[in-house]
């Protein structure tokens, strides 16, 4: 055995892949620090996602599934991998791309171009729903009216609903988003820091909103962000002759440049540096927390104005919209109603100058 290792280390100083033991190792896998070759990386990367899909029964044969596509790396890789796996393992899914156009010049129009190219590259039908057509306002117009403070509140509330509306228009059964393991670990930590036990109990579930009109799921729940970044990078250089490169857009939203870097994200990156498995451990903890099941959930009803699910008389989007249309943009922001508080908490956090959150506003991964 010793001799074998010695000879393996010889050729040009390169080590052999610890999985196939045949090819030269090309990278240290971020999740496990194993030294593996490119081919094995693709295989384990895609196989893990396949296992997650199968083990958690994410899809049923014949379902129509929309992929929330922002043009960013997560959703682009997700769209590619999902269509690959759908063909390879014959899931029998009808896949669609669903994008939201917030109407942010110089940001969303560019990233939408990326999604349109993806549509052609992967042959997936694309549906774009815009704030302008749904609400009559673009984000540019909203920012012009209310300034750079609180604009993420509007964007976040509108986007959530826009995705659901787009999914309804596409008549899909499920919506998948590109949330990755790092995102989920970060959410677990943030919910602990904020004291939000209700969200803490559900933020690690792979499928959410099963009681709502369109369930959402996260096939990348256990996929490391670093590996999502590496995946297209390697693709660009090698293999898949028919496939040139994954084309994705990476610029932060022009209206929330501060939201991008947060303590929590940096903290997770630091943890990952010392102990890569920490990200998975945090998710594991999130799943294992002993939380008594009868935490009170807001009663679900429908908005009297637009019919969207809402715990209030009007849904949040309608309240905000009413404010915009009546020229009272402060309406619905802040602690006006008791039950609104919870939702507001999120958005207020994002707008703080010293944000502890990091996820870039304006991606579809929320």
């Amino acid at each position, binding site marked *: 055995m010793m001799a074998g290792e010695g000879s393996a280390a010889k050729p040009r100083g390169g080590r052999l892949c610890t999985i196939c033991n045949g090819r030269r190792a090309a990278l240290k896998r971020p999740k496990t620090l194993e030294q593996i070759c490119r081919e094995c990386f693709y295989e384990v990367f895609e196989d893990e996602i396949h296992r997650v899909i199968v083990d958690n029964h994410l899809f049923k044969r014949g379902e129509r599934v929309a992929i929330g596509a922002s043009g960013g790396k997560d959703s682009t890789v997700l769209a590619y991998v999902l269509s690959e796996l759908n063909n390879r393992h014959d899931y029998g899914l009808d896949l669609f791309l669903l994008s939201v156009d917030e109407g942010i010049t110089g940001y969303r129009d560019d990233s939408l171009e990326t999604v349109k190219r993806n549509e052609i590259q992967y042959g997936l039908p694309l549906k774009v729903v815009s704030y302008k057509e749904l609400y009559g306002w673009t984000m540019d117009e909203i920012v012009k009216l209310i300034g750079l403070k609180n604009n993420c509140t509007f964007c976040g509330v509108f986007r959530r609903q826009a995705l659901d509306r787009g999914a309804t228009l596409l008549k899909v059964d499920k919506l998948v988003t590109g949330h990755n393991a790092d995102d989920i670990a970060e959410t677990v930590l943030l919910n602990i820091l904020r004291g939000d036990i209700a969200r803490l109990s559900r933020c690690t579930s792979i499928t959410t909103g099963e009681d709502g009109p369109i369930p959402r799921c996260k096939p990348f729940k256990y996929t490391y962000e670093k590996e999502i970044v590496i995946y297209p990078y390697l693709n660009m250089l090698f293999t898949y002759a028919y496939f040139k490169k994954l084309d994705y857009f990476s610029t932060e939203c022009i209206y929330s440049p501060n939201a991008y870097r947060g303590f929590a994200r940096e903290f997770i990156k630091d943890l990952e540096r010392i102990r890569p498995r920490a990200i998975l*451990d945090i998710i594991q903890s999130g799943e294992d927390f002993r939380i008594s099941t009868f935490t009170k959930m807001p009663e679900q009803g429908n908005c009297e104005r637009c019919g969207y699910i809402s715990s209030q008389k009007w849904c949040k989007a309608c309240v905000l919209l009413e404010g915009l249309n009546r020229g009272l943009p402060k309406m619905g922001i802040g602690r006006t109603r008791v039950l609104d508080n919870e939702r507001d908490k999120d958005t207020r956090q994002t707008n703080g100058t010293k944000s502890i959150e990091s996820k870039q506003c304006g991606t579809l991964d929320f």
Partner: protein
Amino acid sequence: MACSSGTCQSGCYKEEYSVNDENKTQKLVKANCEGSNGVSARGGVANGHGLCIKCKVNETIAATHPDVTGRGGGDSLRFCTDCFRSNLFGKFKFAVTSNGMITPSDNVLVAFSGGTSSRVALQFVHEMQFRAQKNFDASRDRSLPVFGVGVAYIDESTVLSNDSDRAIDEMNLIVSSLAPPAKHFHVVPTENIYSVDSTARRDRLSELLNAVSDTTGKEDLLVQLRMLALQKIALENGYTKLVLGTCTSRIACHVLEATVKGQGFSLAADIQYVDARWETPVVLPLRDCLTEELKMLCSLDSLKSVEAFQQPRSGINGLISSFVNILREENPSRESTIVRTAGKLTPFCFNRIPEVGNDNSHLASQRRQKKYNLKPNESLPPKSFCLVCNSPLKKPDDTNLDEFYNGKTSAQIYMVACSSCQYQILPKEPSSLEFFYSRLPQSMTALAKDNLNNQKLLRNQIQDCLLSDSDDGT
């Protein structure tokens, strides 16, 4: 912030500490009336007049002790020295009484590291005992005995290879100054957990720790050994409770540490007021006090602490404590929020003081106890505990039982450890794992054996059709 937990009873203890002279008070009252004050009593808003928001009479700490300002998470701007002190003691006292931590018949061992938190714990326990003694001396029937107090220091000089003699002398002075009633001071080296002769002990301990390669894992193992050493002192000297100075800030760190290490299931066990997993129940009366508050009390009352051996934390733990420091600077109440969130997780059945039968001898003491939080906990006791960290295991892996009975010792050891300890403490290689196991103190392995036997029993009950495949001949 400080009173948000609803434990603020400072008024009740005020007389204890009140050292005002009448003149000063009157003068201040006058001053207060002249300056029409519309000061909001909320948050850490600086009081324009520098008056305590509680008694509205004395000047705040920031005004009287400019040297300690900036500590105590804004308390120095809100409270005067007396109100601050009584508020802090109130939190301690409430934790003690509402959880039945200390009863008159108890013999309490305070773990003293020399740091500020355990220094305050020692001080408060002493004050409680001192008052109990006064009441005892004054009462006619003397029906309530005074609880006993001992102090323990675990000397880790073998592990950390430093010289602790001077620190121990200082601590000795501190403990002896807290009398009457006199307190026994136990100084015990970590290696005392082994019941072999003293040189062999040291070797065993260093061999055990050297077998752990992960920095964080080594640190966590050491914490566990410290607890074993304390438990041993308690057991050998007839102590009935073990008091730790664990404060909110430390618990907040622990919450994040456990989360990051994948110990979400067992986390709730570690952060309650009472942890009766151990032979001598462990109690945390400073659970609601922030480290900044404790530090401030120490500097206000010149409580001497011995910081010489406070090791900076390393690895994952080090990363987390610096993260929590950043969070604290951003928002001083963040630590309390973290602990409150984790406090909502369901605790285990051993997280309360066990009922000690119907012992009528201390009826008087029972009558006086205010047990607010002792609601019966319906959760079933966990089936088994981790060999190394003693955390409740999520489920004994029944599927692997066959492997367990037929498997090697190394496989068996893995089965009685939580996944976190498997990763960061247990050696991966079977022979080094067995060596590691052989170096564990008996008190640990004995527990593991109990665990295994329980699992065996369970298995025998379910599957009596199986041939007895035990090969140990016991």
